[in-house]
C-alpha cells in the first residue's frame, strides 16, 4: 500500500532507516532518533510524500515482554531497547500512511519533538511524557497533561505498581499515605 513511501524513504534517507516492516497493512520504518527531525520534515514537505495529517503518537514499554510462544527461560527482551515511540502519519493528498518507530534505551528516553512540524502532536507528546516519561526535546511546553504535578513516576510504565495511588487529599481520619501490603491497592 505505502511501499512507495518506504522506497522513497530508503532512497533519500537510507542512512536514517534502521529497518522497515509491514504489519496489518501498515508500513513501518524504524528511524534513528538523531535523524528523526530531518526525516519528518522531508516527509511533510516533499511533493511525493506530503504527510499533512498527524494521526497519533504513543509509546510502548517492552519491559519483560515475551511473545506467547516462547518459554519463560528465554529472556527475549534482553538487549532490546526498552521503549518504542510510534508516530503514525497520513497524507490526505496521496492517501498513504506510514508509521515511524523510534527505539529508545531505558537510561536515556529522549527524542526530538515533532510538534513544530505538526502542532497536533503537542498534547499527544505531553500525554506520552505523562504516561511513559519520554522526554521530547524542543517541545514548547512539556508538562504533565492528565496527572497532577505532585504525581511521582509514570503510570503506564510496566514497572509502576498497578494499584499504587498517590492521593492528594484524604478525610481527616484517614492517612494520606497508607502503608500498603505489597501487591495490594491503597484501600
Amino acid at each position, binding site marked *: 500500500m505505502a511501499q512507495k513511501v518506504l522506497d522513497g524513504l530508503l532512497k533519500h534517507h537510507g542512512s536514517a532507516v534502521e529497518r522497515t516492516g509491514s504489519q496489518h497493512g501498515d508500513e513501518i520504518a524504524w528511524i534513528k532518533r538523531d535523524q528523526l527531525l530531518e526525516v519528518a520534515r522531508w516527509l511533510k514537505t516533499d511533493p511525493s510524500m506530503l504527510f499533512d495529517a498527524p494521526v497519533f503518537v504513543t509509546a510502548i514499554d517492552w519491559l519483560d515482554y515475551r511473545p506467547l510462544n516462547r518459554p519463560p527461560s528465554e529472556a527475549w527482551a534482553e538487549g532490546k531497547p526498552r521503549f518504542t515511540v510510534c508516530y503514525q502519519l497520513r497524507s490526505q493528498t496521496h492517501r498513504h500512511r506510514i508509521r515511524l518507530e523510534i527505539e529508545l534505551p531505558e537510561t536515556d528516553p529522549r527524542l526530538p519533538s515533532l510538534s513544530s512540524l505538526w502542532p497536533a502532536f503537542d498534547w499527544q507528546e505531553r500525554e506520552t511524557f505523562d504516561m511513559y516519561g519520554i522526554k521530547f526535546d524542543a517541545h514548547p511546553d512539556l508538562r504533565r497533561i*492528565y*496527572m497532577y504535578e505532585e504525581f511521582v513516576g509514570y503510570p503506564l510504565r510496566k514497572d509502576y505498581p*498497578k*494499584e*499504587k*495511588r*498517590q492521593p492528594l487529599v484524604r*478525610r481527616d481520619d484517614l492517612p494520606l499515605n497508607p502503608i500498603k501490603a505489597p501487591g495490594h*491497592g*491503597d484501600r
Partner: protein
Amino acid sequence: MGVEITTTRIEDAAKWAKQSLVEKASNWGRKFSLFSYPFVTACCGMEFMSVAGPKYDLARFGAEFPRFSPRQSDLLMVVGTITEKQGPALKRVFDQMAEPKWVMAFGVCASTGGFYQNYSAMPGCDQVIPVDVYVPGCPPRPEQVLDAIIILMDRIQSGRGHSQLRTKREDIIAAQQAGEIVE
C-alpha cells in the same frame, strides 16, 4: 441545660423519642425539601437524569430541584467516578455546603471505585468526604436511588446523618468543656 451522651442505636432511638418538638419538626421539613447538588462526573449521570426526569420523578420526594451551587444545596450526590486529581475539588465543594448536609454515593464508582482499581481512580468518594448512603450498581437502577432517598429521609428524621451527628458531638464537647455534662 445538660447534654446526654448516647452510645448505642437503642439509646439513640430512645433519645429520638425524646427529641424536642422543634428538632422533629425541622428534621421533618429538611427531609422533604432536599436540594441536591449533582456532582456528575461519568456515565452514572445518565441514570441521574433518568431518576430526576418525569418517569421516576425525584420530585415526589421533594428532592426535585438540583441547585448547581453547593452553597444552596444540602444533598451532595456524587454521581460517577472520582479520580485522585478530583479529590481536592470534591472536598472543596463539600466544605462549601451549609450545615446540615448529606452525601449520597451514586453508583459503585462513587462508593468503592468500582472496577477502576488503578493509579488514577479514587477507591470511593468516602476517602475524602463522609458518605451517608451508598447506592450500588453500575449504574444503579432508578428504583435503587429512590430507595436510597427514602433511607436517607429516615436517617434525616432520626437525626443520624453524618453532619447532624457531628453537630451533636460538637455540642457534647462544648458541654464537657463547660462542665455541664450529664452521664
